[in-house]
C-alpha cells in the first residue's frame, strides 16, 4: 500500500451531523464529511480489487435485526462449507451470538462489535482483509449491523449487496427504506412461511423493490423451511 493510500484510509472518522455544526465551522464539517464518504469509497474499491485479484466472491448482507440474515446465512454456509473455504464477518453492536451460530456450520468467522456505530464501513473490512491471506478463501460474507438505514452510507467493496427484509416488518418496510434498495443487487423477502397467518401484502413489497430499483432481483424465502434458499443462491451466483 502506498503512503497516500495509508493516509486516505487513516482519515476515515465518523462525523457529527452537519445540522449540529455551529455556523463558523459548518463549511469545514461539510467538507470533511464529503471527504469521509470519498475515503470510504477509495477503501471499498481497494477491497474490491484485492478480492477480485484473489478470486474471492464477496457479499454484503444487510437487513434489520430479526429479519433473518443469520438464519439465511446458516443455510447458505451449510451448503457451501464442505466445498469452499468460507469466511463470514459478523457485525453487531455487541455480543458474538451470530458468529457462534454460523461457526456451527464449519465456516471461519470474525466478529466485529461496532459499539456505538450502526453500520460496518470499508475501513473495518480493510483492517480484516489486510491481515488475512485471501488465497485461503473462496467466499466472504459480511453480515452487516442490523438496521436498514446506516449501511446505505457505506459501501464495503463486495461483489453484491443483498438486503433482507421479512414480512413481519410490514408491507411498507421496503417503501420506507428506498436508499438501501437502490444500492442493492438482490432483495430478499423472508419469513414467507408466515404469509397466510399475517396477511402481509407480498405483491406490494415485491413491486416496491422493483419500482425503487428496476435492476434489483427479488426473491421470497423462508429461512425456517429452507424454501427458495437455492433460488437465492442461484441469484448470488453460488
Amino acid at each position: 500500500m502506498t503512503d497516500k493510500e495509508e493516509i486516505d484510509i487513516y482519515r476515515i472518522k465518523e462525523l457529527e451531523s452537519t445540522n449540529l455544526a455551529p455556523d463558523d465551522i459548518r463549511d469545514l464539517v461539510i467538507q470533511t464529511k464529503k471527504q469521509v464518504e470519498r475515503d470510504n469509497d477509495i477503501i471499498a474499491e481497494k477491497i474490491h480489487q484485492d478480492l477480485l485479484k484473489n478470486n474471492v466472491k464477496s457479499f454484503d448482507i444487510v437487513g434489520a435485526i430479526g429479519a433473518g440474515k443469520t438464519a439465511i446465512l446458516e443455510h447458505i454456509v451449510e451448503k457451501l462449507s464442505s466445498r469452499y473455504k468460507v469466511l463470514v464477518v459478523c457485525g453487531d453492536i455487541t455480543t458474538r451470538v451470530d458468529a457462534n451460530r454460523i461457526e456451527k456450520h464449519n465456516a471461519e468467522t470474525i466478529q466485529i462489535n461496532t459499539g456505538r456505530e450502526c453500520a460496518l464501513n470499508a475501513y473495518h473490512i480493510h483492517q480484516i482483509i489486510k491481515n488475512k491471506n485471501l488465497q485461503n478463501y473462496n467466499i466472504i460474507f459480511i453480515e452487516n449491523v442490523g438496521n436498514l438505514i446506516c449501511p446505505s452510507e457505506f459501501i464495503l467493496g463486495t461483489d453484491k449487496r443483498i438486503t433482507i427484509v421479512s414480512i413481519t416488518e410490514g408491507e411498507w418496510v421496503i417503501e420506507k427504506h428506498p436508499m438501501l434498495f437502490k444500492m442493492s443487487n438482490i432483495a430478499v423477502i423472508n419469513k414467507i412461511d408466515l404469509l397466510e397467518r399475517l396477511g402481509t401484502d407480498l405483491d406490494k413489497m415485491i413491486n416496491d423493490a422493483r419500482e425503487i430499483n428496476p435492476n434489483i432481483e427479488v426473491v421470497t424465502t423462508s429461512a425456517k423451511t429452507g424454501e427458495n434458499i437455492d433460488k437465492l443462491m442461484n441469484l448470488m451466483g453460488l
Partner: protein
Amino acid sequence: MKRNLEKIKEIISNPHEIKKTNMPNLLKNFFDKYIKISHIEKYIGDYPTFIEPVYLEENIKIGDDVLLGPNVYIGANSEIGDYVEISNTIIFEDVIIGDNFNLENCIIANNTQLSFSNYRIKDCILRGLANSERELEKFEF
C-alpha cells in the same frame, strides 16, 4: 500465553540487542498461537469497536471512540485514551496511552506512559515515561 508474554517482555527489555527482522514474526506467532478468539468481557469504558481477536486483561480503562483490533493484547491496569486505534499490537500491564494514538505492529513495555496526544506509529517498541514525542523511547523494527 503467559510464558510467551514473559519471553517477549524479556526480549524487549534489551531493545538494542533485538534482531529487527524477527519482530514481525514474533508478533504474528503470538497472535496466531495464543489470541485466536476475543476476551473482551471486562473493561471499564463505553462500548469501543472491537475487531476480533482482542484480548483484554483485568481492570483496563478504554476511552470514547476507540477501535481495537484485529490482533490486540492489553495487559492489566492499562488505560487507553479517546479516539485511539490499535491493531497487531501487544501492550503490557500498567500502560497509559494518550488520546488519538494510532498504533500498528507495536509492542509497548510495561509501565510505559505516553502522556501526550495525536501520535501515529507502526513497527516499533515503545517504552518509558513520555510527555511528548521527543521524550519517547522508540525502537523501530
